[in-house]
């Protein structure tokens, strides 16, 4: 299985790999640390040449033909609709219906398209790096076997610490905090080396992931030259199987939440170039965030169990037209609560979004935060936590209380020698800090006593005050422009008063209407289907309830995970949105099906063992017609 997860689309080149590795060993196996960068330089020269040749668009029959053959085989398999039991996870169909229906003479002769060439190149590169990294790992330089911690997370700035002896300056955040600086430096040094190396070939988008024997390095360039790297241990436990994209989404999420509260990392660095400010902000923030992920004493990363979920999207409540009109009418009232300056608002019901006036990006950030800390479920933390996002970690909600002291103890021992001790650092993600006040507004002392939280809106590039109001399961997040608040808390209480005066009747009405139409936790369950629907344009997703997904067999989930990885790879290959359909037959004869069409994705697991591929696609078709307005109906 370990072999399985490692192969990242590069398996077609498996034959040549041994040679590369041998050569690399020859150059690098001197055992000296200094030689690592030199080695990278050598690789650059050696492999830059074939890369250049490839990019010139010369023929690349081998890979392309491979691909086409594979497709042909899959097509045949599909038409015969008898699953071949030979391999455990086999791609059965990469569907391009037009060429499939009409065999075309150009198929084998056509020049290889640019993305294919590029991906081939990257595959090759990835392979080289893997080998390279494995060596480093073997040399103990990456020192990944420390303290039984399965996760490392670091944030560093490439623009800092350029001179020898100042390397420590690069590090903005490191988790776990108790590892030695040399370990921190080695992780960051390695990551930097990889980034520098891959940038040679792909200046726009450097490396995203390095898969090694025992670890995965997941990279995310959060801001220009500010990188977040997550190193996860590949445990022999089977649970430690993840999708790189899902891990990257974690990095993205923590970063965009940070920006929402504190502004960009770069801006904090500019404010105080010594870096103390940003460190004192990043440390508690990411620690608080990771608290949410912890189960027992371990951090639980989104594994294949959560493959039918999409982090970084919003889950919406479906509304009937009359309810939607009531909601919009309420939104209209909230908009004008601060006089002439328009307020923004986000309304949630349970943990689902009802309405927003923000851009999709901002909506996602605020939605994520609200579901984490503000909604009725979050407030009654743990007791009956239900959420699309966090059902899987509902145990952690209760257990986190026991673990958080452990993590926070270390926050006290935060290196205060960073030169920044000016005032309190606000920790917006602190647990159990929000309570519902008498007037229905949620209050917190995170921002200080009687202080109103402010957040940064990305799209409008403005800072706004955040007011949250709760009526039973309805949560209203009102964002008041800072320009509207001239007299501080006086104006805030005026806005609150306006809300209570003008909107209370409407809030009650909306709450009543939504409660009446509320279908419960399993409202979006479609019997017989386990699905995930993603709309990338609006950053909205909808999935089968996690309780239902949990009934799926492990093999099925693994197959879906695999499927999603395949789609991720396909998507990253080309910027253009294109239609695709992929079906995978899992070990237990379940079907995992993906359909992608112009920004919308549908993933589905069908566990009826007797189904042929034809049955399975019919099921998808009827699902699409019934629940997605026919978006995914292609044939």
């Amino acid at each position, binding site marked *: 299985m370990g072999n399985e997860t490692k192969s990242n689309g590069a398996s077609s080149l498996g034959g040549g790999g041994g040679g590369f590795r041998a050569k690399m060993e020859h150059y690098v196996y001197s055992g000296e640390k200094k030689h690592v960068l030199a080695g990278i330089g050598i690789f650059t020269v050696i492999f830059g040449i074939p890369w250049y040749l490839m990019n010139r668009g010369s023929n690349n029959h081998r890979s392309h033909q491979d691909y086409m053959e594979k497709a042909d085989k899959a097509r045949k398999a599909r038409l015969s609709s008898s699953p071949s039991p030979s391999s455990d996870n086999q791609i059965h169909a990469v569907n391009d219906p037009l060429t499939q229906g009409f065999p075309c*003479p*150009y198929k084998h002769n056509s020049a290889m398209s640019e993305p294919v060439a590029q991906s081939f190149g990257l595959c090759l590169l990835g392979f080289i790096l893997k080998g390279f990294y494995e060596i480093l790992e073997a040399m103990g330089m990456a020192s990944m076997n420390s303290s039984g911690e399965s996760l490392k997370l670091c944030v560093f700035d490439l623009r800092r610490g350029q001179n020898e002896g100042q390397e420590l300056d690069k590090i903005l955040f490191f988790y776990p905090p108790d590892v030695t600086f040399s370990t921190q430096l080695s992780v960051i040094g390695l990551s930097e080396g990889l980034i520098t190396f891959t940038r040679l070939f792909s200046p726009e988008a450097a490396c995203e992931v390095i898969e090694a024997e025992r670890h995965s390095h997941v990279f995310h360039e959060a801001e220009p030259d500010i990188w977040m790297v997550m190193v996860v241990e590949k445990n022999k436990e089977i649970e430690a199987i993840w999708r790189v994209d899902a891990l990257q989404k974690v990095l993205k999420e923590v970063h965009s939440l940070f920006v929402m509260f504190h502004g960009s990392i770069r801006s904090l660095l500019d404010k105080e170039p010594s870096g103390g400010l940003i460190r004192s902000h990043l440390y508690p923030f990411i620690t608080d965030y990771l608290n949410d992920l912890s189960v027992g004493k371990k951090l639980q990363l989104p594994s294949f169990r959560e493959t039918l979920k999409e982090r970084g999207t919003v889950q919406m409540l479906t509304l009937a037209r009359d309810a939607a009109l009531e909601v*919009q009418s309420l939104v*209209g009232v909230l908009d*004008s609560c601060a006089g002439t300056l328009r307020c923004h608002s986000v309304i949630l019901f349970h943990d689902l979004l009802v309405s927003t006036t923000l*851009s999709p990006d901002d*909506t996602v950030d605020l939605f994520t935060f609200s579901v984490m800390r503000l909604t009725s479920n979050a407030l009654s933390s743990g007791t009956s936590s239900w959420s699309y996002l966090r059902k899987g970690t509902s145990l952690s909600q209760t257990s986190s209380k026991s673990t958080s002291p452990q993590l926070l103890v270390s926050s006290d021992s935060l290196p205060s020698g960073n030169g920044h001790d000016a005032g309190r650092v606000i920790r917006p993600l602190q647990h159990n800090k929000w309570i519902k006040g008498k007037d229905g507004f949620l209050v917190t002392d995170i921002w200080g006593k009687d202080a109103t939280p402010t957040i940064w809106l990305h799209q409008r590039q403005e800072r706004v005050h955040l007011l949250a109001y709760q009526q039973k399961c309805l949560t209203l997040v009102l964002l008041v422009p800072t320009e509207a608040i001239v007299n501080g808390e006086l104006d805030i209480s005026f806005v609150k008063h306006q809300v209570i005066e003008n909107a209370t009747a409407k809030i009650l009405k909306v709450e009543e209407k939504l409660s009446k139409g509320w279908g419960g936790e399993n409202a979006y369950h479609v019997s017989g289907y386990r699905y995930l629907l993603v709309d990338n344009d*609006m950053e909205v997703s909808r999935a089968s309830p996690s309780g239902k997904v949990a009934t799926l067999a492990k093999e099925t989930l693994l197959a879906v995970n695999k499927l999603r990885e395949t789609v991720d790879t396909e998507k990253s290959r080309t910027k253009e949105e294109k239609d695709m359909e992929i079906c995978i037959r899992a070990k237990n004869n379940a079907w995992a099906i993906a359909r992608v069409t*112009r920004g919308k994705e549908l993933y589905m697991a069908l566990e009826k063992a007797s189904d042929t591929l034809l049955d399975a696609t019919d099921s998808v078709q009827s699902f699409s017609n019934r629940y997605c307005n*026919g978006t995914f109906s292609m044939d």
Partner: protein
Amino acid sequence: SSDTALVNLLVLSFSNAGMKEKNSATTASTLGRILATCSKQAKDYGSCVASIVHEIEKDLCLKQFLALKSCMQHTVKIMSPRPSSSQTSVGSGALSHAYIQHPSLRCNVPESRGLFYDDANRLLICVTSSQVFSWETATFNPDVSPSVDSIPEGPILSVRFSLDKKVIAVQRSDCEIQFFHRETKQTLTHKCRAGSESLLGFFWSDSPLCDLAVVKTSGMDLFACDSAMNLRLVETKKVNVNWYIYTHESRLVLLASGLQCKTITGFQLSTAGVVRLPKFEMTLASTESNSKPIISAGDVHLVTVYGRIYCVQVDMEAMLLHTYRFYRDAVVQQGSLPIYSSKLSVSVVDNLLLVHQIDAKVVIIYDLFVDSRAPVSAPLPLLWRGYQGSDTSPQAASKENESPESSTSSENIVMYEDAWTFLVPDLILDQTNKVLWRVHLDLEASWLAISASSSDRTSLLEFLQRRKLEANKAKQLCLGIARALILERRPATQVTQAIDVLVTAYSYSVKAGIYKELKNGKTTATIPTNDGASPDNERGRASGSSLDEEEEEVEMNLPSGPADEQQESQLSSPAISPDELYKFVFASVEEMMVEESDYLVAIITEFLRSISAEKLKVDLNIYVMTIRLLARSKRFAELSLFTANKIIEPSKEVALQLLESGGQDPRVRKLGLDMLRQLSLHHEYISSLVQDGYYLEALRYAQKRKVTSVRSSLFLEAAFASNDMQHLAAILRVLSELIPGFKETSEYYTFHGLLNETSSSVAV
């Protein structure tokens, strides 16, 4: 409050001007000019209002108000080229809510011995010694020639035609009524017992029980009358009667008894039968000088407004006008209105109560619908007006050639002469001049006055929506107010309330069958104008009496004779349909609200909510407009929310607008494409897909749906432009299967040739 009143006033006249000019772009400057011209008057009025803001009476700043109003009217008139509201008037200030208008109905009968009014048939009757002239007043056409009947000579105390107009009944003395059949010339004399009782009067009835009621001092006799004019006594109601009043529109007769005549027994002789109302006492204050005042018949009036029957009673000692409302088994006193004159009369115009303070020569208007007993407007004199020059009223137009006469007749009009008799509901009989006038209401003036006195536009709209007589004008005013509310950027809650009022009023009138689209070409003749149809919820709210909910109203079966119709007005109801609201309010303000599309979207959302709550439909152009507004302010997330929740209902026009707005955001364009697909608008969907470069998907879709209407060259050119020969070949192949005979077209040859040129090994 002075500020608001003032601003209201200014803005209203401003929107008024805008409405007339139909040129909204100039309204802003109009307001500016009005303000500039009338600044002094405005200041005066404002400071006057401010100084007496705690006073109760409304007319204290009348002088200042009149000055300001006339100044503004003057300014507006100067600015608007068409003299649309020009009218000749007499009286000071030329301002009034109520007026009588030329031409009047003249009874130029020589040797006239008296004028009578038969309210059941709405006949003006003029008698000479041996002849009866009768004019129809329902149409109020001065040209109509009277019908003439001969009757034997004798004294005439009153005259009433039977309801089928075949019999003329003439009261000769206090114990004799004579009946004359107009066709058979048959005569019958009815006498009561002389000495023991005397005849007070009589009236015809359409109740199934009886045809004629004769009121005597000893009670009321009900007679049935057959075609041969035989009277048969059906029933006798024994009451001691001092005097009685009866109006045909309420079918209610009140018999007064007792020393002070304040004990009232009432009967309703409606088509449902004869109903006896509970006996009740009228309120009378007593003073030292007059410890036992007596109510006379002239002090009590029966008033029918909004289908309810009220009785108003003058209490001269207390200087109050008491109102009572009649229910089937209860009479409830409703409150009192102040009076300012020793002589008083009332008329009802368009469900509004006009109280003529005869000594003061002013009219005060009350709207009994609402709880408050505050007058609708300040007291203003009754005016005389010439015909309206450029008005659309056909009656006025036809009478234009008689204008010289009107000017001559205008000279001898004296307002509130002693000889004036106020007839039910809205007529004034001038006994000396032998002229009959109808009282009209100047909606615009009263509207202006109301809005000057209160800033509550909602109640103003409600008031206007209740108007029936000048429905068209009320409608225009409502539209103007709605527009003004939006243009003034009033708080959304206020605008919402206003919109709710208009939408509910429309919904109600549709349900009640009052509202008819003009384009149906139906005349008002078919439209029931049953006054009894006031909405239940409003009725309950209006009176606040607990009896009200439990008890039915007496006048449930009020008949609506053809005479009720208002033929000079084309509309029967000022209700505004959602389509009209869109067209005349939202669409017309869109251009001016470019900068504030957020606000407008909020208003439109409220409008949609309102019509959705009433289950009405609206012109889909409002959705197109909403999309335009949202796209203009770049609120694409909300746009997708609106589309997903079907707040914007899908339609072809909406989809095309989404595609157009999607030029700025591809996500919006996708919404449009999805909508096209869901609506099965194959042709548009495929064309748009190709336009976006998704020609393969488009072709696949075309192939699946067998759509051949899309030009095949679209696909081919798209594929050729993308320089993908493989696709081009596939497309050629699909098209030749899809379209019969495609292989014979020139397109096929062109692209097939191109394909061959590119690659010699091609074989399609």
